[in-house]
Every structure is written in structure tokens, then in C-alpha cells.
């Protein structure tokens, strides 16, 4: 740990990685809370995996993979949102299809890209150490968009998440709000992909909020605690991974998973103590 702290004072890339993790935690805590309370982690998983198609195509065309990821995440969010609004019964199957076809498209484009072969692993599992200072501005901007929209629509999102039918009866544009919510989830996925890669996104999106939801009974405090936990897991994972030279993303997710397990035990004990 002291080795990490020492390196942190001198190594620019470590400072950037730490800042990237902290910034990403904001999006992860706020949107992850919606994903958990509205029970849409499968939808979010679908969006995250479909993103590989965009990254693969962008890479093939010699464009920025993150730009491709952004476009693919938005398209995937709207397709998945439309499907689940339209064919609620079979949405599960259609999302699974998009999920795997998206990945297949990505793999095909990456394999056909001429020249030096890209490190597929870093797309799938992320590499926070590769974050450049310029990426921090992108992450901060996406955080800003997410926070502003959530502040404006907090009550409306809460109503749609809690009781969609009642929200519709009060004249809220339920479909629009649902697609807007998924759009923000897509932006969060793009942010988190740079930290832990697209396969592990779901862990950071759901675990901090799931831990917070066990101890808090209102949405806004859950968002705040999930953000803090996200910061703890990303920085802690980075620090733990540094010494033994472990993959940072996987270490963060293991840390979050351990945290979740511990929280289940604590919540169980608290529940028993109360009864």
C-alpha cells in the first residue's frame, strides 16, 4: 500500500487512473441506483455488451473506439428500450440476442482490421492505467450531463421507477422518461468501460447501489452512498492491484463483490437483531 502511495505522488498515469476511477464512480453511483431499484441490470448488461460492435467498427475504420462505444451504447439503449416497451413478454429473449450479436459484430470487425492487432482484452476487461488526461474531461462531461438530467427529472424518474402505471395516469410521458433513463445508463456504461471494461461494467453498476440499498430506504441517499462505495472500490482496487501487478479492473470488481457479500452478512445480522 505504501508502495502505491509513493508511486502515486510521482507517477502521472497513476494519478490519472485514480481520478478516472473517482469520476466514474459518480455516474456509477447515481445511475446504478436506478438500475438496482428498477431491476434492469439485464438491460444494462445488454447495452454494455452491444457496445463491442461500436468499438470494433470504429477501430476498423481507424476512428476513436470510445466514440464508437458512445454511438453503439446509445443505439443499443434505444433499441433495447423500444423492444422492452413494445414486446414486454419477449424482451428478455430479444435483449439476449442483441447482447450476443453485438459482441459477434465487434469481434468480426476487430479480427478484420489490418495491421497491428488490437488488445481485445483491454476492451473486454478495461485498463484504467491506459486512461489519458484528455479522457478525464470526457468522463467529467458525461458525469455533468447525467447529474443535470437527474436533477431536473428526479421526481419523474422516481415516479416511473416506483409505479409506472400511476405515473402514466398522472399524465407523465412514461415512454420518453424510460428511454431518457436508459440513455443515461448508456452514457454511464461508456464511462465505466474505460475503467473496468465492458464485461465487468455490470458489477460496478449494480454492486455499490445494491450494498447501499440494503441499509438506506430512500433513493437519493442510496445514490450518495453508492457513489462513495464506487470511489472506495475503484481506488482500493487500484491500490491493491499495484504492488502484485494484478489487472486493476478485475481487482476492483473482486473488491466490490467481497463488499457485497459482507454487506449481506451485516444486513442479515442487523435484521436478526431487530426481530
Amino acid at each position, binding site marked *: 500500500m505504501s508502495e502505491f502511495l509513493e508511486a502515486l505522488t510521482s507517477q502521472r498515469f497513476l494519478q490519472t487512473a485514480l481520478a478516472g476511477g473517482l469520476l466514474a464512480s459518480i455516474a456509477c453511483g447515481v445511475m446504478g441506483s436506478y438500475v438496482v431499484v428498477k431491476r434492469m441490470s439485464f438491460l444494462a448488461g445488454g447495452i454494455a455488451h452491444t457496445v463491442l460492435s461500436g468499438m470494433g467498427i470504429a477501430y476498423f475504420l481507424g476512428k476513436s473506439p470510445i466514440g464508437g462505444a458512445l454511438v453503439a451504447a446509445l443505439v443499443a439503449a434505444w433499441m433495447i428500450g423500444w423492444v422492452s416497451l413494445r414486446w414486454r413478454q419477449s424482451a428478455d429473449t430479444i435483449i439476449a440476442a442483441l447482447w450476443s450479436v453485438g459482441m459477434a459484430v465487434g469481434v468480426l470487425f476487430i479480427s478484420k482490421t489490418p495491421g497491428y492487432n488490437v488488445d481485445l482484452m483491454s476492451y473486454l476487461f478495461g485498463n484504467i492505467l491506459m486512461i489519458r488526461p484528455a479522457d478525464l474531461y470526457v468522463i467529467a462531461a458525461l458525469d455533468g450531463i447525467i447529474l443535470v438530467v437527474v436533477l431536473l427529472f428526479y421526481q419523474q424518474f422516481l415516479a416511473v421507477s416506483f409505479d409506472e402505471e400511476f405515473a402514466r395516469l*398522472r399524465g407523465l410521458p412514461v415512454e420518453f422518461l424510460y428511454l431518457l433513463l436508459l440513455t443515461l445508463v448508456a452514457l454511464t456504461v461508456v464511462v465505466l468501460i474505460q475503467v473496468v471494461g465492458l464485461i465487468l461494467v455490470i458489477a460496478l453498476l449494480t454492486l455499490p447501489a445494491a450494498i447501499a440499498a440494503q441499509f438506506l430506504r430512500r433513493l437519493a441517499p442510496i445514490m450518495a452512498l453508492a457513489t462513495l462505495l464506487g470511489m472506495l472500490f475503484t481506488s482500493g482496487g487500484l491500490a491493491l492491484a499495484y504492488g502484485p501487478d494484478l489487472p486493476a479492473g478485475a481487482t476492483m470488481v473482486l473488491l466490490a463483490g467481497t463488499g457485497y457479500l459482507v454487506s449481506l452478512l451485516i444486513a442479515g445480522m442487523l435484521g436478526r437483531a431487530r426481530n
Partner: protein
Amino acid sequence: MTPVLLLEKLSFSFGGPVVLDHVDLSIAEGEFVGLVGPNGGGKSTLLKIVLGLLQPVSGRVEVLGLAPVRARSAMGYVPQFASFPRDFPISAEEVVLQGRLGHGRLLGGYRGADREAARLAMTETGVRDLRRRPIGSLSGGQLQRVLIARALAAQPRLLILDEPTASVDPRAETDIFDLLKELKTRMTILVVSHDIGFISHYVTRVVCLNRNLVCHTTSELTGEMIQQLYGAPVRMIHHEVNR
């Protein structure tokens, strides 16, 4: 005078068998109507049509002289518990405030007038002391009062309740119907219930639905009517209402 609710030759099916068959019903301002009938008799479907969530196959439906979707702001709706997860992280007050949504704005938070309306509704239903409690910690009767307060916060002219006493104990059931009895001086009420004997003490009219309107009475129900409605003899149990 325009009836609060008007159904004319209303029919509905989900593509298969007919669920509602030529239903005629007119509810005037100030009535307290109990809608009873067997499971699968079309009660919930009828409510969904009145609320504009389902479109009838044929026939006419008007709420306050308007198409249901356009009359939504004048309707207060109390759903069955199943429409949301009980462990959702939300306080009683936040639920009641949702009755104020759609009053003119599509984004932003609540205003003073909204909080005032929610406060009045919670006082009226006796849940003001529970306002900071998460809904997961409320009893069935308390939660039902919170849902009624949410509907009242919208200041409706027509209050619609779907099985408001299905998941509460008998004492809370009496309390809830006593509350509705007070509310009926201000608004028209349509309540769906399975408990035919109980509601006949409170309502001004009972409407029995089993695909079509089987009976229609302002007096107390007789065993014969119930038999006609359910198609089988039903044992009537007289409820003693303790005050």
C-alpha cells in the same frame, strides 16, 4: 347534468373470449358505487377502460363528458398493492407527492402548493405522522391509506379504488370504508370489491359485473342476486360493524 361516468354498450375482449359484453352504466355526481363480481368477471378490465389504459372494442366511454385519457387529471386512482414492489426505497410522503405529478410541469421538483396538497391529503387519511417512514415498514392498512392520500393529493372529482381492502385486516377495512364515507360528500367514488356483504353497508349503489351488468341495486343485496351473479348459491355472512 353530465354524468361523472358514462358507459354505453361497452364491449371488450383481449382477442379471445368476450370479457365485457354490452355494459351500460351511468354514475352521477356524488354517488358511492360498489362494483362487485366474481374473479375474471371483468372488474379490473372495466377500471382499466375507465382510466384509459385499455381501449374498448366497441361502445362508448366518457368520464365527465370527456374521453378517459383527457379526463385523467380529474381521476384519482388507488391501485392494488401488486402494482409496485413493497421494498422500493421511498418514503410515504414521496409516494403521496406523486399524486401531484402532471400538474402542468414535466420536469423539476414539487412546489409549495404541491406540498400543501399532499399535507392535507395525509392529514385527512391519518398518515401524516408516518410521512418519513419508508413504505416497506408500513402495515397493509397504513400503506393503503398512503395510497388513498396519493390519489386525493390530485384533488380528483372521481376516486377509483381497486380492491382497497384485499390485503388489510378487518379493522383496517372498516377504517378505510369509514374514510371513504367521509370523502363521498366531496367526490364521486367507484370502488371494486370482492366483499359484497361488507360494502353494501356503505355504498349508495351496488353494481354487479359478470361479463355484463347482472344486477343493479340501491337496496341491500339479497341471496338471490348473489346467486344470479356467481351462478351458484353463496352463503351470506352478515358482518357486524363495530364502532
